[in-house]
């Protein structure tokens, strides 16, 4: 056998504990990198792949409202020049319609088609799962209703319209490009032909819709094309209502949870990698100390420093190779769990497949990283002279200070001796401090996600304005409805806020909140830089939009609406995760420059006078108010929204992931801390075995020595928990905002519950103490007699 392999085999045999500890850390790291990459490279692209397979083209535009004049010829005229192909079809579309979803409902546009949806040449629907025994009066729902909406085949799905309820049995779930995910603000349903005909006959005058899916010619910009087409549509019919999405926006909206998971895992992995680097360095340093005589003997009989170094490199490489292979296999095994959560948001079926790059990158990364760290750390072996090594390195004990002198210490004996151990093991303390700190940070980030996406959803990241409910009345009754609402004692802060799409430079549409009295807005965090508009020439735009077009505060921006346009002064930046981060705020008087603000329906947002802590009670209360309003004004009420109910539905996809992240991160933290403490304590006990023998001879019990050793880690554990809790508390929001910028959230102010942070710090401290205590059990095996006679 080759001499290097001989030494490697010996190293592996003699250092089983260290090898196993490092092996497990590397398995965790490879597994997390593997999961992240599989999400990035396999899961995430499946949305794009499906979009291509189901012929989603480059985007779609829908036209509702007044469809007079939109003949096939007109549609061809609008779309033919700029597209390679397009496909137009008529169906029904209910805008801002409440739909049961998850724990509540979502208010969303609902596109309703007949069976022909499965045979279209573009935007084809595909059945993922169905109950073929259901033969009539059925509905196919988007797959997301199944993955996170809580629906299964055979359930009843209802559509309410003007007091009439249409009930359908859920026959199956579909894969669809547009309308497959609540984040894209559209759900697309397929009814059996008879049910569709009934609904069509009842509602088509109000809800008929033309959808056009298009594939653009090379060089045509999607944003510009859409706005140009919108304007052309308004020229055909000023009362037509347009909506549209480009395929990139749809894909982005369907995958951002996957992105958050992947990035979070990569961050956790980078912290674990730092821990592995420290443990590798520590293990090599310990190896040299523990085997100094052997190293001397090997050198004396002719082994070169390179031979010995090679054996170390091969030793750790064997661990790295085995652990990375097992780690990546584990990643594939647990991927379905993470994929199920990602699918919950994507709404696209994902079948895990082998991805060569996602498989090779973690393996190569862990192996290369191990190789580099080992080679650097093992370099000192070459510098050791054989005679010095044989004399055990002529260790000169340089105790500069007698820390915690027993004659002066006011601490108990165990505490005093623990402190002595603490001061004599600064390297371990630094490793413990850093690793535990990283784990505290990961847990605090997970807590932030849990708190703001699950326990107390931070609503202002989902919507620009928070309220209890919204009632929209037609123009005829707007004054009357407002007076009615203002006279009710159970609601307060009634504010008029209208939503309209306005346009910038024929390139970009901005979802605009037109607010009568900005001081009544509940979301005080909306404007993260500058201020909200006050005068009639002012506008606030979303930060991501401003960044994309290079706007600063004080710049002028030309906003178009129909044939009108006006130059506004930008007073501030708002942040939003909605509408691809493209939103703006105008006051009524400012909006009056581009639209007839006096000739629009009444949009009334209100809060409850007595808001309950019980969400269900709030839902019932708002329902009651809305029902009373509808009873009084009948068809004059165009639409309503129960905000509490909507939040329940909208948050469903976030809740699963945030709970999962908290559990996964805390579990990983405990495992990593356990492994690090295992390696450190194993090394500490080995180096102090002589001292433990002396203590035992003097009459110290194993229990008191275990306690002392566990306690010796506590100062660095406690210091790390305190320091990193404070740091994490202050850094978590800027850190999260780095990732949320892509989704339009420019400055995060997520709530981080102090008791939660304290609980994490205290929890990890207590867990660390008990893990340390558990791992000091090896002290029990040290027998004073055996140790003393062995010397």
């Amino acid at each position, binding site marked *: 056998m080759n001499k290097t392999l001989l030494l490697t085999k010996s190293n592996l045999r003699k250092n089983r504990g260290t090898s196993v500890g490092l092996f497990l850390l590397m398995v965790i790291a490879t597994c997390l990198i593997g999961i992240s990459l599989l999400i990035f490279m396999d899961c995430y692209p499946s949305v794009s792949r499906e979009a291509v397979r189901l012929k989603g083209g480059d985007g779609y535009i829908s036209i509702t409202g007044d469809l007079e004049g939109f003949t096939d010829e007109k549609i061809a005229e609008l779309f033919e020049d700029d597209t390679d192909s397009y496909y137009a079809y008529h169906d029904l579309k209910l805008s801002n319609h409440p739909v049961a979803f998850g724990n509540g409902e979502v208010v969303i546009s609902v596109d309703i088609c007949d069976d022909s949806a499965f045979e279209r040449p573009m935007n084809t629907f595909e059945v993922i799962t169905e109950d073929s025994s259901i033969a009539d009066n059925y509905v196919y729902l988007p797959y997301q209703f199944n993955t996170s909406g809580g629906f299964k085949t055979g359930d009843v799905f209802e559509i309410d319209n003007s007091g009439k309820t249409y009930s359908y049995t859920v026959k199956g779930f579909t894969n669809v490009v547009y309308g497959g995910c609540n984040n894209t603000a559209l759900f697309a349903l397929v009814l059996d032909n008879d049910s569709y005909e009934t609904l069509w006959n009842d509602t088509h005058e109000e809800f008929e819709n033309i959808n056009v899916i298009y594939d653009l010619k090379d060089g045509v910009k999607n944003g510009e094309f859409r706005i140009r087409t919108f304007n052309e549509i308004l020229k055909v019919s000023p009362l037509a209502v347009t909506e549209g999405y480009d395929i990139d926006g749809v894909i982005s909206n369907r995958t951002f949870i996957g992105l958050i998971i992947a990035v979070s895992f990569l961050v956790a992995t980078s912290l674990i990698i730092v821990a592995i680097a420290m443990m590798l360095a520590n293990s090599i340093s310990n190896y040299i100390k523990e085997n100094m005589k052997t190293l001397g003997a090997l050198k004396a009989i002719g082994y070169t420093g390179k031979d010995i170094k090679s054996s170390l490199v091969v030793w750790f490489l064997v661990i790295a190779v085995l652990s990375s292979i097992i780690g990546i296999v584990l990643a594939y095994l647990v991927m379905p769990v993470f994929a199920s959560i990602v699918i919950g948001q994507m709404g696209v079926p994902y079948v895990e497949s082998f991805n060569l790059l996602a498989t090779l990158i973690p393996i190569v990364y862990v192996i290369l990283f191990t190789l580099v760290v080992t080679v650097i750390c093992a370099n000192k072996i070459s510098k050791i002279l054989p005679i010095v090594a044989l004399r055990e390195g002529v260790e*000169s*004990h340089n*105790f500069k200070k*007698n820390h915690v*002198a*027993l*004659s002066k210490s006011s601490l108990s*004996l165990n505490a005093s*001796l623990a402190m*002595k151990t603490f001061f*004599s093991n600064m390297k371990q303390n630094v490793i413990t401090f850093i690793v535990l700190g990283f784990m505290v940070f990961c847990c605090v980030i997970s807590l932030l996600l849990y708190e703001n996406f699950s326990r107390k959803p931070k609503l202002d990241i989902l919507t620009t304005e928070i309220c209890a409910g919204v009632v929209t009345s037609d123009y005829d009754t707007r004054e009357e409805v407002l007076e009615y609402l203002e006279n009710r004692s159970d609601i307060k802060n009634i504010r008029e806020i209208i939503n309209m799409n306005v346009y910038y430079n024929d390139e970009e549409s901005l979802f605009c909140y037109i607010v009568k009295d900005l001081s009544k807005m509940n979301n005080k965090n909306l404007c993260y830089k500058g201020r909200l508009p006050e005068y009639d020439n002012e506008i606030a735009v979303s930060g991501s939009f401003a960044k994309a077009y290079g706007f600063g505060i004080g710049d002028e921006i030309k906003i178009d609406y129909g044939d009108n346009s006006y130059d506004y002064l930008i007073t501030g930046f708002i942040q939003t995760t909605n509408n691809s981060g493209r939103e703006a705020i105008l006051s009524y008087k400012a909006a009056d420059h581009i639209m007839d603000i006096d000739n629009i329906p009444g949009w009334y947002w209100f809060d409850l006078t007595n808001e309950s802590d019980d969400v269900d009670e709030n839902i019932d209360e708002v329902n009651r108010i809305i029902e009373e309003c509808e009873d009084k004004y009948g068809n004059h009420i165009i639409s309503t929204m129960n905000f509490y109910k909507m939040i329940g539905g909208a948050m469903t996809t976030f809740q699963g992931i945030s709970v999962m992240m908290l559990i996964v991160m805390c579990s990983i933290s405990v495992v990593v801390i356990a492994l690090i403490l295992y390696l450190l304590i194993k090394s500490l006990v080995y180096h102090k075995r*002589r*001292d433990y*023998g*002396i*203590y*035992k*001879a*003097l*009459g*110290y*019990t*194993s*229990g008191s020595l275990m306690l002392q050793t566990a306690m010796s880690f506590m100062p660095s554990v406690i210091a790390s928990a305190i320091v990193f809790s404070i740091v994490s508390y202050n850094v978590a929001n800027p850190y999260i905002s780095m990732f949320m910028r892509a989704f339009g959230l420019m400055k995060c102010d997520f709530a981080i519950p102090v008791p939660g942070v304290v609980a994490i710090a205290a929890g990890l401290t207590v867990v660390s103490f008990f893990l340390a205590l558990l791992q000091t059990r090896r002290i*029990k095996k040290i*027998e*004073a*007699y055996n140790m*003393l*006679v062995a*010397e």
Partner: protein
Amino acid sequence: MKNIIETKKLCKTFSNGGVQQHVLRNVNLEIYEGDFTIIMGASGAGKSTLLYSLSGMDKPTLGSVSFCGTEITKMNTDELALFRRSNCGFVFQQVYLVESMSVLDNIMAAGLLVYKDKRTLLNKAGEILKAVDIDEPLWNKFPTQISGGEAQRVGIARALINDPKLVFADEPTGALNSHTGKAVLDTLTKFNEKGQSIVMVTHDITSARRGNRILYVKDGEIAGECNLGKYVTGDKERHQKLNDFLAKMGW
């Protein structure tokens, strides 16, 4: 004379790769209060095994050891540790001071196991250190900063800090030169003269002369015993008696 230790049929067997090695065979002996008992024998005869079995540091395979009437062979490791605190003191050949602790802290680490009053302990530690000729300037030095002889005397001070009923010394001069070795023996002799019971393992005749009772271990058994009487410097008759005994034992 009152005995401190009494063993009955003490056996110790080591197994190594299926091969059994009987290190102690049915040892019956008594250690008496006030004695400076010397255990001698050839290398591998079982001297140290006997010493550590008597002190509760090692568990015999068979037989019993009673210490002041209490059978210690039935104690578990923690009970033995608690027992050793106030009953036994140890002086080792390699000294075994805790190197990360100062001289004074090495004494305190043992003393604090028994003494609750730190001030009293501190005074006692000072007295003992002075008694073993370790002057105050050395108290805050670390074991690696003092000589081997000084370190061994610190070891003796540590062994004596809790007023043990018996001090066990395992070749305390084995690693020292003759000059420093003599100083260590003088220290032990001084404390024995004050009434401290000592059991010392040695294979050095000069060291053995300090004892008043010599036990000779051969093949795991007490092969012979010799009573020399009280140690007097330069007592040639006493030296001759020891030489004759050892010659008879095949030394």
